[in-house]
């Protein structure tokens, strides 16, 4: 995560052109797969409409749907907890783990745990948390944060993974064959699955009519963990609720196709009841979501199903990488979620958008991502230079005389603009200010003929 403004962090990131191009191509490939798959579904756009409407319905009926979920979950034998913020979430999970004497626990990928700082908190309690999704595990072993919400290690080259595994798991020196490394990771993780005292997952969806928590993964590691441990925890945000299994089907058709260009995730697990002799705890978290819901300009953010599609398509994200953003979620949705959580801290990300609107058209749940960035910009200004230029233009355009005069002094004005703005001139020439001639006169000349 960057502590400086996106523009400054991105400028540094862009110095390694080969890496930037590789990252851009990798993510664009994922977008391409998504395009091909989505075009095989004739009703694709209708599905997106349905997803958007279901989310708007669910998020505007949260109290009844969440209570319905709870009553079914309890009837299924689960124990339900409610957390209003990150602190309560950490306390509940920390309390469960310490209460059960857990020293080691396995978890599968959960952006909510990142959001709430769970792993560092547990470390403080002396509990070791092992990430079991391959990408997350790589990131964890490297001591890094995810750079993408679905492909957390997308910025790591396989050679780097080879070297890491050599050190951590004793793999052959110099071998960075993906299949070999995946097998090594699998063997290595097995011992943790067997030893772990507890297993935790996030939740992609929570089905109100059945009380099921639905987890979509590709590696099956979530299932390995939850199948062995005596204590299972699933935690999710209140915006994950869907009314019933029928509506769930709309999202499972969209999620993997948009996220990775697969027809469906390899595993779509519905967790409802604890296994015999074990406990199943469900933690439902608000942590600012109800505040977003109350915000007229930004409530559609809660439509997000965290597919990562907007990142893959974002031309700025693809060329600036996940760590150029100050929020733990980067890309179009991250810019918005950061602003929704702490605007003063994250307004430096607002510049990271050309308003190209590609994200809005990729988004399976039709979050109005670009429009929301436009709206944040109206309330949070990011740079004095930009304001000076904008003010200057607004003044210049205030009357045709001023504008005409501005054009006459065009080259000088452009130089000034360059000075204020900084870097237009690097790698890119300024256009010539062609003329200040009175274009309106073409009409008169023409009619005079």
């Amino acid at each position: 995560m960057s502590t400086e403004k996106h523009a400054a962090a991105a400028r540094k990131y862009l110095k390694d052109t080969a890496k930037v191009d590789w990252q851009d191509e990798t993510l664009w490939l994922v977008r391409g797969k998504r395009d091909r798959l989505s075009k095989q579904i004739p009703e694709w756009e209708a599905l997106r409409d349905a997803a958007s409407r279901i989310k708007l319905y669910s998020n505007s009926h949260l109290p009844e749907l969440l209570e319905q979920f709870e009553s079914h979950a309890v009837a299924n034998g689960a124990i339900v907890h409610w957390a209003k913020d990150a602190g309560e979430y950490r306390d509940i999970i920390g309390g469960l783990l310490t209460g059960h004497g857990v020293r080691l626990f396995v978890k599968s990928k959960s952006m909510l745990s990142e959001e709430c700082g769970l792993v560092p908190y547990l470390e403080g309690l002396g509990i070791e948390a092992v990430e079991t999704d391959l990408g997350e595990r790589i990131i964890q072993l490297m001591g890094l944060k995810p750079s993408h919400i679905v492909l957390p290690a997308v910025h790591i080259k396989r050679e780097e993974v080879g070297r890491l595994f050599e050190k951590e798991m004793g793999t052959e020196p110099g071998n960075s064959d993906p299949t070999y490394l995946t097998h090594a990771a699998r063997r290595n993780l097995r011992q943790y699955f067997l030893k772990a005292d507890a297993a935790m997952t996030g939740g992609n969806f929570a089905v109100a009519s059945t009380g099921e928590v639905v987890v979509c993964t590709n590696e099956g590691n979530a299932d390995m963990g939850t199948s062995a441990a005596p204590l299972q925890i699933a935690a999710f945000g209140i915006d994950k609720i869907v009314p019933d299994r029928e509506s769930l089907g709309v999202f499972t058709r969209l999620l993997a196709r948009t996220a990775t260009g697969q027809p469906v995730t390899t595993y779509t697990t519905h967790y409802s009841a604890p296994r015999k002799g074990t406990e199943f705890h469900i933690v439902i978290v608000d942590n600012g979501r109800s505040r977003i819901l109350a915000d007229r300009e930004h409530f559609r953010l809660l439509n997000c199903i965290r597919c990562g599609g907007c990142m893959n398509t974002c031309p700025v994200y693809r060329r600036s990488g996940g760590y150029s953003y100050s929020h733990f979620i980067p890309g179009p949705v991250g810019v918005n979620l950061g602003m929704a959580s702490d605007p003063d801290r994250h307004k430096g990300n607002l510049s990271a958008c050309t308003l190209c609107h590609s994200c809005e058209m990729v988004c399976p749940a039709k979050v109005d991502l670009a429009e929301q960035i436009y709206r944040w910009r109206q309330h949070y200004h990011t740079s004095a230079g930009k304001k000076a230029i904008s003010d200057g233009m607004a003044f210049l355009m205030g009357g045709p005389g001023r504008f005409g005069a501005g054009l006459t002094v065009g080259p000088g004005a452009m130089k000034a603009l360059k000075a204020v703005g900084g870097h237009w001139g690097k790698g890119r020439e300024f256009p010539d200010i062609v003329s200040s001639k009175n274009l309106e006169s073409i009409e008169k000349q023409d009619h005079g003929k």
Partner: protein
Amino acid sequence: MKVALFIPCYVRAVAPSVIEASYKLLRYLGVDVAVPEGQTCCGQPMGNAGYEDEAEHLKKRFEKIFEEYDVIVGPSPSCVVYVRERYGELFRGRIYEICEYVHDVLKPTSLPGRFPHRVSLHNNCHGTRLEGLAAPSELNVPYFNKLKDLLSLVEGIEVVEPERPDECCGFGGLFSIEESAVSVKMGEDKVRRHLATGAEYVTAADSSCLMHQGGIIAAQKLPLKTIHIVEILASGL
């Protein structure tokens, strides 16, 4: 019916020939187009940068100038979309981007002149995704491209598209200054893909994208020229 030509400020500043071409094209197609005096800027650059309220006086000026017209036509998708979307109801249904107007309303079946060149078409963001000039690559909708349709009326032209035909070129108004490093990189990638088509010209419906891409082309001294699509359509006039 009163039709007015809207002259976006930066088009006037960097590509006034586009205005003359727009005027000629509309006249040729039988439109008695007026060019109202006193035009400056619609306020889009300020709005996109976060200062919509400070451009309120520009909106008022625009409204005063164009109120009396039944149809307003401008050679810039992003400005047209800005006025349509941000000005409330006033101009909805009567402001058009010029290619849209020519394609959907005037519907010419031929155009005079020849343009015997290979031309790489940049499908710019606002034209494609907000104005509906072409099917956006993201959507599962039947393919269409109004710009290609119009260009096909010009004799001798060969129209090609770069790889990633509607990926953003990185201009983005004040984005190009505030995020200049990313902006230049995006522009370089875009221009490289145009070059790979073997085209002599890059064309688009938006002069701002062309100004940005042209800046990269000039800095790298590449064998490419930029030309606004209306200048091609009006090349025989």
